[in-house]
């Protein structure tokens, strides 16, 4: 199956600055592919090249097998682009904004009206559709900004940090819409610098910094690259030596800190797995009141890969 998006060795050089330094990846139909990276990583520059706004210094972009360099109009027809900065006509209503974008893609009459109504409902702006957008809250504008990229029902949707600067509730709304889009069989490229978003949303993701992909894969695969295992914390009426002995009997389970009534253990990556480790402890006759399992997160991975925090 041809991937919906295939990016090969993409470079962009601005003067002395290499903003994108050899990025390659591909995204399959219905996937949400994440681009996770800090400010200035090259996310927007990459998106601009993928949607034909910026000519790459080097490299190739194929959308459903079509090259953006050879057939820009053909590719642009397949794309929905949602820019990082909200760009809407403030004096027009949400409906007029959507009608305008639909009109550009050749929708008209009843088909346009129905599509616009559907979208307004989907992004939850149907009750405010006639109001000038300048009256909208930040979150509402963001939703409209998103909807405007979807009017023509594109195959591939490029979302550049669509939730930046809005409250958690509004963010959830947008994430739900994105999930819905993917569930409808559309493909999404999603850039963000929020880890939680990337983890929650993306089927696969690339961690990028300084214009390069540092790691790529599913969330689980990426975590696996951490090398460490899960952190297991148990509490109960046991004595420290009892837990230490029980843990010692399970291969691949390393005690980190054990005191009376409480223990922290790491289940190694190549070890028995969390459930086997736990059953090993149960078999030793221990009983616990409380068990927590903490997965390593992408923050740790990012720190690991780049030596710095994801957020400034």
């Amino acid at each position, binding site marked *: 199956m041809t991937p919906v998006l295939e990016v090969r060795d993409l470079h962009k050089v601005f003067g002395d600055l290499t903003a994108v330094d050899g990025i390659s990846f591909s995204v399959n139909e219905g996937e949400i592919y994440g681009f996770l990276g800090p400010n200035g990583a090259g996310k927007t520059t990459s998106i601009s090249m993928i949607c034909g*706004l*910026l000519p790459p210094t080097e490299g190739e972009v194929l959308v459903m097998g079509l090259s953006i360099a050879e057939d820009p109009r053909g590719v642009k027809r397949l794309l929905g682009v949602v820019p990082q900065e909200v760009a809407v006509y403030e*004096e027009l209503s949400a409906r007029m904004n959507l009608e305008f974008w639909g009109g*550009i893609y050749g929708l008209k009459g009843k088909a346009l009206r129905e599509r616009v109504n559907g979208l307004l409902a989907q992004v939850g702006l149907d009750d405010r559709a006639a109001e*000038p957008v300048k009256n909208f809250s930040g979150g509402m504008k963001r939703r409209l900004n998103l909807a405007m990229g979807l009017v023509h029902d594109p195959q591939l949707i490029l979302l550049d940090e669509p939730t930046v600067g809005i409250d958690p509730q509004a963010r959830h709304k947008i994430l739900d819409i994105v999930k819905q889009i993917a569930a409808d069989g559309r493909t999404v490229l999603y850039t963000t610098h929020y880890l939680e978003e990337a983890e929650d949303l993306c089927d696969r993701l690339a961690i990028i910094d300084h214009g390069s992909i540092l790691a790529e894969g599913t969330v689980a695969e990426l975590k696996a690259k951490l090398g460490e295992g899960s952190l297991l914390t148990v509490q109960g009426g046991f004595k420290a030596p009892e837990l230490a002995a029980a843990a010692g009997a399970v291969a691949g389970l390393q005690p980190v800190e054990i005191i009376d009534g409480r223990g922290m253990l790491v289940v190694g990556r190549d070890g028995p797995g969390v459930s086997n480790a736990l059953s090993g402890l149960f078999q030793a006759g221990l009983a616990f009141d409380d068990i927590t399992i903490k997965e390593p997160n992408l923050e740790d991975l990012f720190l690991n890969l780049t030596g710095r925090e994801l957020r400034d």
Partner: protein
Amino acid sequence: MWPLILKDLRRRLRRPASTLVMVAFPLLMSLALGSVFGGGGANDRFPPIHILVENQDPDGFLANALVNALGSPRSGDFIQAEAVGDEGRSMMEKGKASALVVIPEGFSQALLDSRPTVIHIVRNPSEGIKPEIVVLGSELVATYLDQGSRLLGGELGQIKELVDARQIPPAAKVGAVAARITERLSGARDYLFPPLVGIASAKEAEPEGANSSTGGGVFGYVLMMTTVMALLFVAVRSVGDLFEEQNSGMLRRQLATPMPVARIIAAKFLFSVVLGLLVMAILATTGLALGWLDVPAAPGAAILLGLVFNLAACGVVAVIMGLSGNEKQAGIMSWLIVMGMSALGGSMVPLQQLPAAMRGLADYTLNYWAIDGFSQVMFEGAGMGDVAGNLAVLAGTGLLLSVLANALLVRRFRKVAP
């Protein structure tokens, strides 16, 4: 193409202030200049308005220009302005004038900074209007002022510099015109609009046939010549909208669609022409309703002239914008060129009254070809054939410049910063 034009028309409709200014400007100019140049007998309808002006911003360049404009011989019989100090209010109480205009301290700076400012007008109670202090912060005027300073926006500051530097002589003229416009937009409105209403009612009472063949005479002529200038400003605004769309990220968004850049620009042109025709239609209708204009023998020729002139106006403005280094420069350059063409081409002073030396330059302005054509069609009963030359010049220039402008603007707007 149509969705683009529709979108721009809707945007203009939702934010009509700037367009209203374009419409108001020729009407106000006609009233002011029409009365200066004699008014074609209609002068009797306007008793002179005696106003007092208290300038609390004596160091402000705009305030001074405004005072000069009010007190200049040009304002002539129609407005008799007298500069006063703080005795103005007591003079008003004695009924010495129709109104007292108080220009507040810091007025010029506020306009330059696009900050809100309020001109106070004290009305004369004995003139039949309730005694009250009218604060010119009423919604309409506030909009005018706001739009006026926004319209002239950054340019005002530039013009101030030009004036202060006293390097380029025409610049002083430009400054005065800027002030005139500011005046129209702000102080003038309150005493100019009531007479407007007055004309309409006075006309109803007039017996049939009186002086009807000459129409409004000078009023109609001034309306026509200033409308031509207003249409150039419509083009500046409309074509300049490309910069606004660039700044707001809308252009970038449009470039990410399959639409070619050339179409986006062509649509902006068409929108500008359509809006120009609308403004022209509104002004023509108003002129007809006020009796300033008569329906011409060849209305088709008038409409066609309007069409080709609007096209040429967009072309010239767009070429300037295409050649300018940046947005600011584009704004100033197009503004200066529009002003220059208007001054030389008969939009500010009737062609017949221009000195001979300047008269020769008029041929190089779009205003001249339009005004010459319109005056033949509107006032001399000329037909399509009589103005064929004007039509050809304007259409030819319009097409040529549009093609050139399109190429320049495509080059300019194709590239977007990521």
